[in-house]
Structure formats: structure tokens, C-alpha cells
């Protein structure tokens, strides 16, 4: 079964075509600058790599272009667009309605529209992708996989803010959490890596990329996560502040005469590693600058590490223990230094890092010593595969139901 996984931004479209259930990636691609005369469509298979620059005015046109590439004789992947059996979409915000991935129908699209308020930058773009797909490949089942869904298992006392309750009732102001597809994927890999049943494990998952969030996962279910109603809450990130005293914002608005937009930009794009170091929001460069003796870069690194470690401590308390501490995403998978500094400062817990495995190992692996009280792992994330799996599961379920004999 061929499943196309699509991640639509406001002017971009990332995709991967999977052969399921073999989980083989047939092609990966990316359309950038949709709406421009010089949009870029890059794609890659095992044998080919291509790049076109041409006018692509909207998401529909972008998808037609994707289909043209998939069915081109040169790549020889598909003979016709009809060979695509289902489409899986990444949708950022599922609000409270979606705790699971779901087959898209009219009711689902209405519910996704209802969450525009909560994710004004992302959900409308995701929706454009869904509508464009419906127009280009009508009748092909589409599935929505939500970033927030995995965290819908959080209990109410964890997801509510200590604000007037009426704000939750009126506007659904609460913590939702993000990176759910990633946290779910990596935690689903834990049993394979550590050889224990997921239902007995307390896991702390650190998804540390450009954006970063931690999740406390008990018996395979998310019980807490560091991002909140928006992806701004929680640990310090590349350019996002993470947690700050809300009164600071009021103070800064007054002192600097900022507008709402300027304030939001300051917190999202001018803070974090970038804001503190004054150089970059990229962890690789921060480490480089730090090793050259740049004091502000060193400060930014220490703050970043400290804030992650504090959350780890909080989640150990939240779950009353921790069996597995795992690292994933760009920084989590690649920065051995960050992992080392975090783990070395957790010695009170009985955490023993295997430096060899931490620094020299590659890919999915354990990086703690056998007698460490907590098993440390690196597990590369794969959100697209998770979306493909969900889509495959839902669509085959759908087909099986249709094939059942009628009820007597």
C-alpha cells in the first residue's frame, strides 16, 4: 500500500511516500516558496535526486507537481496518481477533540477549523493541504495525525493553568503539548531498545530540536509535557524563551513600548540560545563558540542544559521515579556534550553514563552503563513513519470494515 505523508506549512509542503506495511520510503521531497514565481521543488529517491525551480502559485499546484514527479517515467515510482492508496497529514493542533489520529471527513475538517484560534499559524496551512489533496485526488482516504493528540491523556490537574477557571470554559485555555507524534514514536521504540514492556515503564522523553519539549510518559501514556497551550512554554529553545515570569513581559512592554506583535516576536524569534548568546540559535554553533571561549555562548549553553535538567527533575517527581531517560531530535540525537552534561549532573539518582556509547555510538542505542539506575537512550525520531503507520492502520481498518458481511 502506497501512503503519501504530507506536512503543509503556509508556503511549504514536505512529503514522503511510504510503501506500507514494509515501511520503505520510496521518495522524499520538499516544495518551498509556494506562491512565488521561483518556488523550489526538491526530491530524492535511492537512485535519483532532482530539483525544479518554477512558479507554483498554491498548494493545489504544489500537489499536482508532486504527483507529476511521483508518476514521472524518470523516477518510475508510480504509474498513475491512482496508485496512492491513502494520504496522512500532519496537523499541529487537534484541540481537545482529538486524542487519536483520525480519518478525515466533513466533521473532522470542521473540528480542525474550530482550532484555528489555538494555532493560527499552523492549522490553516495544514487545512490547505487537506483541501488541496481532496481537490487533486478526490475520494482517496486522508488521515489527520495531530501533534497534540498523544498528550490528551494528561490528567486535568496537569493540563490546567492556575488561572480563573472560566478562561478554560470560555476559550479552552489549557496546556496541550506538542511534538506528540515524536514522543509517541520514540517511546514506542523503548521496549525494543531496553527489552522491557512499555506498560511497566516510566519514561522521560527529551525531544530537543529547534523547538524542544520533554514528556513524562507512564505506562506508554503521556502524563505531562513541557509545552503548553502554544509551543512557547517549557524549556529554553533555539530562539524561543520557554518559561518566564509573565510579569516580566508586562514590564518589558512598558519599558520598551512594545506592541503585541513585537512581544510575540521577541519571545519566539529573538530569545532562547540566540537571545542569550547574541550569536546564534543553533546548538552546533553555540558549542563551537563556547569551545572558542565565547562567554555568552557558554552561558547560553549552561542555561539550556540547566533548564532541561530542571524539567527532568520535575518529571521524576511527577512520576515518582524514572526508568528510561531518552534523547531525540536534532540536538538530542547529535549533541553528545549536552547529553553528557545533563547526565553527569544527575549522579544523585544513580545515573551512570557510558561515555563511549554516548560519544562514539550511532543511531538507536543505550548510552548508560549496565548498573545505571536509569537507562539512558538515544532514539532517532521519525514522525513521518508514525504518520504512515497511523494512516495505514486506519485505512486498512476502514477497508476491513467495508469487506465484512452485512449484519444478520
Amino acid at each position, binding site marked *: 500500500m502506497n501512503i503519501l505523508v504530507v506536512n503543509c506549512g503556509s508556503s511549504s509542503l514536505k512529503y514522503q511516500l511510504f510503501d506500507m506495511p514494509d515501511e520503505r520510503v520510496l521518495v522524499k521531497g520538499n516544495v518551498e516558496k509556494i506562491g512565488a514565481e521561483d518556488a523550489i521543488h526538491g526530491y530524492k529517491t535511492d537512485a535519483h535526486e532532482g530539483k525544479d525551480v518554477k512558479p507554483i502559485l498554491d498548494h493545489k499546484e504544489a500537489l499536482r507537481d508532486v504527483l507529476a514527479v511521483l508518476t514521472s517515467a524518470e523516477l518510475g515510482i508510480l504509474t498513475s496518481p491512482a496508485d496512492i492508496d491513502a494520504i496522512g497529514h500532519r496537523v499541529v493542533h487537534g484541540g481537545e477533540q482529538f486524542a487519536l489520529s483520525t480519518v478525515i471527513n466533513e466533521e473532522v475538517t470542521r473540528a480542525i477549523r474550530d482550532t484555528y484560534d489555538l494555532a493560527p499559524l499552523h492549522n490553516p496551512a495544514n487545512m490547505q493541504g487537506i483541501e488541496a489533496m481532496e481537490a487533486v485526488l478526490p475520494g482517496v482516504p486522508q488521515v489527520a495525525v495531530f501533534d497534540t493528540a498523544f498528550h490528551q491523556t494528561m490528567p486535568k490537574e496537569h493540563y490546567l493553568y492556575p488561572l480563573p477557571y472560566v478562561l478554560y470554559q470560555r476559550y479552552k485555555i489549557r496546556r496541550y503539548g506538542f511534538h506528540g507524534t515524536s514522543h509517541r514514536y520514540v517511546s514506542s521504540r523503548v521496549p525494543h531498545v531496553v527489552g522491557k514492556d512499555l506498560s511497566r515503564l516510566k519514561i522521560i522523553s527529551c525531544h530537543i530540536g529547534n523547538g524542544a519539549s520533554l514528556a513524562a510518559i507512564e505506562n506508554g501514556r503521556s502524563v505531562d509535557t513541557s509545552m503548553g497551550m502554544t509551543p512557547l512554554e517549557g524549556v529554553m529553545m533555539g530562539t524561543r524563551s520557554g518559561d518566564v515570569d509573565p510579569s516580566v513581559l508586562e514590564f518589558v512592554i512598558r519599558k*520598551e513600548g512594545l506592541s503585541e506583535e*513585537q512581544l510575540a*516576536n521577541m519571545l519566539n*524569534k*529573538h530569545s532562547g540560545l540566540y537571545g542569550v548568546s547574541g550569536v546564534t540559535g543553533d546548538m552546533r554553533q553555540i558549542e563551537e563558540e563556547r569551545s572558542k571561549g565565547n562567554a555568552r555562548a557558554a552561558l547560553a549553553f549552561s542555561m539550556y542544559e540547566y533548564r532541561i535538567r530542571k524539567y527532568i527533575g520535575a518529571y521524576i517527581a511527577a512520576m515518582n521515579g524514572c526508568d528510561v531517560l531518552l534523547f531525540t531530535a536534532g540536538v538530542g540525537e547529535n549533541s553528545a556534550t549536552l547529553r553528557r552534561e545533563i547526565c553527569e549532573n544527575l549522579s544523585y539518582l544513580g545515573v551512570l553514563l557510558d561515555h563511549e556509547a554516548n560519544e562514539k555510538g550511532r543511531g538507536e542505542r543505550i548510552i548508560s552503563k549496565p548498573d545505571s539506575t536509569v537507562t539512558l537512550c538515544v532514539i532517532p525520531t521519525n514522525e513521518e513513519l508514525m504518520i504512515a503507520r497511523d494512516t495505514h492502520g486506519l485505512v486498512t481498518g476502514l477497508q476491513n470494515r467495508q469487506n465484512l458481511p452485512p449484519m444478520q
Partner: protein
Amino acid sequence: MGLGMAETIAGKGLDVILLDQTEEDLERAKDALELALQKRLAKWGITEAEKKGILSRITMTTEWEHLRDCDLVVESVWEVLEDKAEVLQAIEAVVSPETVIGSNTATLSITEMAAYCEHSDRIIGMHFHYPVVTREVVEVVRGLKTTDRTVAHAEQFIRSLEKTPVRVFESPGYITARLMMPVMNEAVNLLSEGVASKEDIDTAMKAGYGFTLGPLELADRFGLDTLVHMLDVLFRETADPRYRPSAHLRKLVRAGRLGIKTREGFYQYDELGDKLEGGVDL
């Protein structure tokens, strides 16, 4: 004003042609744009990458020919009807008959301007407010012959800039100028009559009525010469004495104290246009 519009439009990801009369004008525009973006960057309004993006989307030129492929053209020349009409005709000479042409005017008659044009149905008033980047309202002014299609097109464009269009039928000063010009003018009268200090006049309106800028600060930003000119236009058009420019205002303009652009109006300003404490009283 034209520069602020270009900055705003390019900030929303659209390509902009900025046309001016001479290379020197464009050089000045380039410097001013660089400065404006640098200020926004310093206040976290944009990132370095966004600044580069905005600069890359604005093409500065003195060639009318460059307007040929534009979907929309907005003129923003000096508030004199004949000058604006001449510019509209020059725009019409290069663009296609469907291209919507906006006039960024605060006081003049769209119907009269459109009368100079061949396709008067696509001429529309689009009154942006200073500073364009942060002011959210745009007055959309219908002339007698402006079609629904033109209005819809203009409003859609304004919404795509995340600004709010308000519809106005043609009338001198529309909404905002008709209300604000007399307020600024009367504030100058208050000052010249010695009723209150400039700071207290501004504070009263900021603290009392939620103005983000007091009327005298606003006048400085506007340009006192522009203010006198617009009041004159309204006065001539309506013959209503409430629009007669304050004598004190005229005196300041004659003395070359035009507001922020000369670094001195009611207040004094540094080279970035930020207010200096103190300033010269009367």
C-alpha cells in the same frame, strides 16, 4: 508614506516596485528603509532574515516601465490634486486596463482625480495611516465611478496585509482626517493661547482618552507642513472655519520647524526620530 507602504507590503511576502522621481530620492529612500528596518530589528519586531527578505522584495526604480506587470499600483505623491492626477495618468499609460489603481490621499476627491483617467472605474482611494507598518486602519474611498470589483480587490489586498479596511464615501477628509486634523489644530491653539504646556496637552489626551500619541506628538510625526497643507485643503473645500490652520502652526512651518523630519517641531528629536527630553517651548 510610500516607503512605509512598501516596507509593509514586502513584509507580507509580496514583491514591491518602489518608483520615485530621481536616483537621489531613491538613495534617500534606501537609507530610510535600512534605518526603519534596523529600528524594528532592535525592538524585536523582525529577525535579521526577515529584514533581508523585505529588502530583497523591494525593487527601487525611476522607470515607469517597471510598473507594467503590477497587479495593483498605489500612488503616494504630494497631496495636490493636479500632481496626483498626472501620476495616475502616467500609471494608466503602462499598466493593463484591469489593474486597480489606488490613491493614498487623506483629503482629495477621488471622483475628481478619476475624471482625469481613461478607466475611472478602477481608481480608488486607499488612505494608509502613518506609521504604515503599525497603523492597522486603511480608509477605502469610493469615487462616483469606482466599481464593486475595484472595491473588493482593494479590500482583499488590505486584508492580506492584515490591516482593517473601513469604507468611506467620498467626502473631504473622510473619517480620520476630518476628526484628527481639527484635534491637532486645536491642540496648537491651546498651546499658543498659553492654556497648558505641550506635555500636559499630550498627557491629557493619552491618559484621558487612550491616545497612544498626544495630538502635538502626532502633529510632529505627520509633519507640520503637511498638517497645514491638509487643513488648507479642507478649509478651501468646505469653507468651514473649524479647519482654518492655527496661526502658530503656520509660524512654525515658516521657521522650518516641521516636526520629526527636521528633528524639531513641538518637541526635539534625535537622528532616529526618537523624542529628546525637554525641547523648546514657544
